[in-house]
């Protein structure tokens, strides 16, 4: 039962590839498989179930639908159905549509596996598959030479974080002798648990595009728009936040876990908000906002209110998918993603309205559900401290700023353009459904909404204060006023910032450059050096030593000669004999000594260089000799 949500999309992917020639079937097949996944996920969530499969001695792959995973397991296919329908319609001209759809279905399957995982091994498998699928999806347009490069960049960055999860899994096994979350929860709170916490935080930060890994989301923009929509809303990026929510109860036992997550989240929320505000590319601005929004979730999680984080994740999934699909329509219609050239409001009024709903969700305008969840996050932040709360309030203000800016620049009133490719009705419907979900979440404000969230996520929401609500409303109002003022002065695109600063901010505060200079270039340099042959490094060292010694000795000789000459001159010609004697001594002894030292060192260097023959059999011989010696030593030592 629990496996079915995973199996359905996988089967769909296989089926799509087998009917690849019948293009009319592709969309329906995938959507049907995702609907199957959705249905079975809903059933599993309603009943709650667990199951496991023994892989080998002591290694069980466990899956479970309980607690927060009940929400997530339904959310993933729900968003995916809409996004994939949109993809099947908008990419219908694409020659590689079967591959795209199959990969999307596989992506969803991997994410479902990650969601239902009840142990680190299953989580790792899902985690890796999600990463691999996202790599293939970002690089979908591989004939364009840039796409594979960006895909590689995104993959390597997240992959670096993945190592954290490997460490966490290893530490878990070392600590309790199994990979199960349940065993870890029952296990002792020692340094192993701290290692697990560190690993999970690194992995989650990388996947959820938190600082300092955030820039990979920009690279991910090389993928088709539906891919971005899925990646940002309910799969790849959500995986990090979800993993933290899932494991918070266990890991919060580590004293620094909460503060670390809060700090990461808050700094990303603030930095990402500025990035989103400064960006002039629609998709990249949305990417910045994704980092910022996940930062807010992390704040809630770190403060201990997973329910608030999960609620925010859910609301975000709907409106972010909506916004990305809207961006896709804009790209098709306007032919560009440059915010300076869009303003499609008059040309595509329906889409503009739907995009507006999404932007309102992003801005957390009451009475939308997104405002409710933002409110919960704010309350959670204030529970954790006044400064954190204030930071979140500022981040909220930023979100109002960038959301309003995006909507006005992308879908504000503008000249009526000849739209080359209008959106297909299926695409508009997809947008409408997502907008409907966003609006429907408003019901959370009704009495009983809080209880519903608590019941679904199995955790408590923080008690909000009425002045916190006032702060939120005030920030929305202030934000709109600021945007309006900027718009009046025609400064909205630049945000009133000088272009150099704006460029710096928009490019993630220069983090990519920093990374390139601090990590990538040195690494490539070192590798190049190594590739040139370790000999050159060692040689250089040896030669430098020999050379410097020779140099020093020559200097010394020169000095001695001058000194001796002066003495000789000073004493006068009467002592020429003595002087000659001393010069002979100088030549014969001092020089010889100094030169001998130099030559000796050079000889040593040459000799040591000779061992670097570059030929395998010499190295192997040394290896055998060394092993024999080691063996004998070990035998005697015993």
């Amino acid at each position, binding site marked *: 039962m629990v496996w079915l949500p995973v199996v359905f999309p996988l089967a769909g992917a296989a089926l799509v590839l087998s009917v690849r020639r019948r293009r009319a079937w592709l969309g329906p097949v995938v959507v049907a498989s995702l609907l199957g996944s959705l249905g079975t996920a809903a059933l599993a969530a309603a009943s709650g179930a667990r199951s496991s499969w023994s892989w080998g001695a002591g290694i069980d792959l466990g899956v479970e639908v309980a607690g927060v995973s009940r929400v997530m397991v339904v959310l993933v296919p729900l968003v995916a159905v809409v996004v994939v329908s949109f993809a099947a319609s908008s990419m219908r001209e694409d020659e590689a549509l079967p591959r795209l759809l199959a990969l999307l279905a596989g992506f969803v399957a991997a994410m479902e596996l990650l969601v239902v995982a009840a142990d680190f091994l299953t989580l790792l498998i899902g985690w890796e598959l999600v990463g691999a699928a996202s790599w293939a999806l970002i690089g979908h347009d591989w004939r364009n030479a840039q796409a594979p490069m960006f895909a590689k960049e995104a993959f390597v960055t997240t992959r670096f974080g993945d190592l954290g999860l490997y460490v966490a899994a290893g530490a878990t096994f070392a600590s309790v002798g199994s990979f199960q979350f349940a065993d870890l929860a029952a296990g002792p709170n020692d340094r192993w648990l701290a290692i697990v916490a560190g690993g999970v935080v690194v992995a989650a930060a990388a996947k959820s595009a938190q600082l300092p890994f955030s820039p990979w989301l920009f690279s991910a923009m090389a993928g088709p728009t539906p891919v971005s929509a899925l990646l940002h809303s309910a799969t790849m990026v959500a995986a990090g936040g979800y993993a933290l929510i899932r494991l918070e109860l266990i890991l919060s036992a580590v004293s620094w876990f909460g503060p670390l997550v809060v700090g990461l989240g808050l700094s990303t929320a603030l930095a990402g908000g500025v990035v989103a505000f400064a960006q002039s590319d629609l998709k990249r601005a949305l990417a910045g906002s994704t980092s910022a929004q996940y930062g807010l979730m992390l704040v809630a999680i770190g403060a201990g209110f997973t329910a608030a984080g999960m609620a925010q994740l859910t609301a975000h999934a709907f409106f972010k998918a909506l916004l990305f699909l809207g961006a896709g329509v804009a790209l098709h219609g306007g032919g560009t993603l440059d915010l300076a050239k869009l303003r499609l409001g008059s040309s595509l009024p329906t889409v503009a309205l739907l995009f507006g709903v999404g932007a309102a969700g992003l801005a957390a305008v009451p009475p939308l559900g997104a405002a409710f969840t933002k409110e919960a996050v704010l309350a959670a932040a204030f529970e954790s401290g006044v400064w954190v709360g204030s930071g979140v309030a500022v981040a909220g203000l930023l979100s109002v700023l960038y959301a309003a800016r995006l909507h006005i620049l992308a879908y504000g009133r503008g000249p009526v353009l000849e739209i080359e490719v209008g959106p297909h009705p299926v695409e508009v419907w997809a947008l409408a459904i997502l907008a409907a979900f966003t609006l429907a979440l408003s019901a959370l404000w009704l009495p009983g909404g809080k209880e519903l969230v608590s019941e679904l996520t199995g955790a408590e929401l923080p008690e909000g204060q009425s002045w916190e609500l006032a702060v939120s409303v005030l920030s929305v109002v202030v934000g709109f006023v600021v945007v309006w003022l900027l718009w009046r002065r025609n400064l909205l695109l630049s945000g009133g910032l000088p272009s150099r600063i704006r460029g710096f901010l928009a490019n993630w505060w220069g983090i990519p450059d920093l990374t390139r200079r601090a990590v990538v270039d040195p690494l490539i340099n070192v590798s190049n050096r190594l590739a040139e*042959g*370790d*000999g050159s490094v*060692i*040689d250089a060292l040896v030669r430098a030593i020999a050379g410097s010694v020779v140099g020093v000795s020559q200097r010394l000789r020169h000095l001695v000669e001058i000194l001796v000459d002066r003495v000789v001159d000073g004493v006068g010609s009467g002592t020429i004999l003595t002087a000659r004697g001393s010069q002979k001594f100088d030549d014969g002894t001092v020089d010889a000594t100094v030169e001998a030292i130099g030559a000796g060192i050079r000889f040593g260097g040459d000799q040591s*260089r000779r*061992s*670097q*023959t*570059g*030929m*395998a*059999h010499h190295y*192997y*011989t040394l290896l*055998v000799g060394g092993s024999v010696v080691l063996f004998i030593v070990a035998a005697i030592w015993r």
Partner: protein
Amino acid sequence: MTLEAVLLVSAALFGIGVYGALSQQSFVMIMMGLELMLNGAIVAAVGFWWGTTGGNPEGQLLAIVVMAVMAIEGAIGFALVTNVYRVRKADITEKLRKLRG
């Protein structure tokens, strides 16, 4: 037939393999030396299984893993030799001394 005798045969095979791997110039002959070493390893593994484990099949499993290693060594070895020959026109180790210091 005692365990010691089996291990002696294994040691002899391994020693000859070491000699071959170190003394031959041709890549393919070096691979033969490696195979001979693995051959000795198989004898030792099965010998230990036969003499010391009381019939625990995991000992035989080890031998199967060694055989898999042998197949892997063969496949990758030949692929590398082919590639090196194509790119560097080298078929003996002396022609491949890029790492020389």
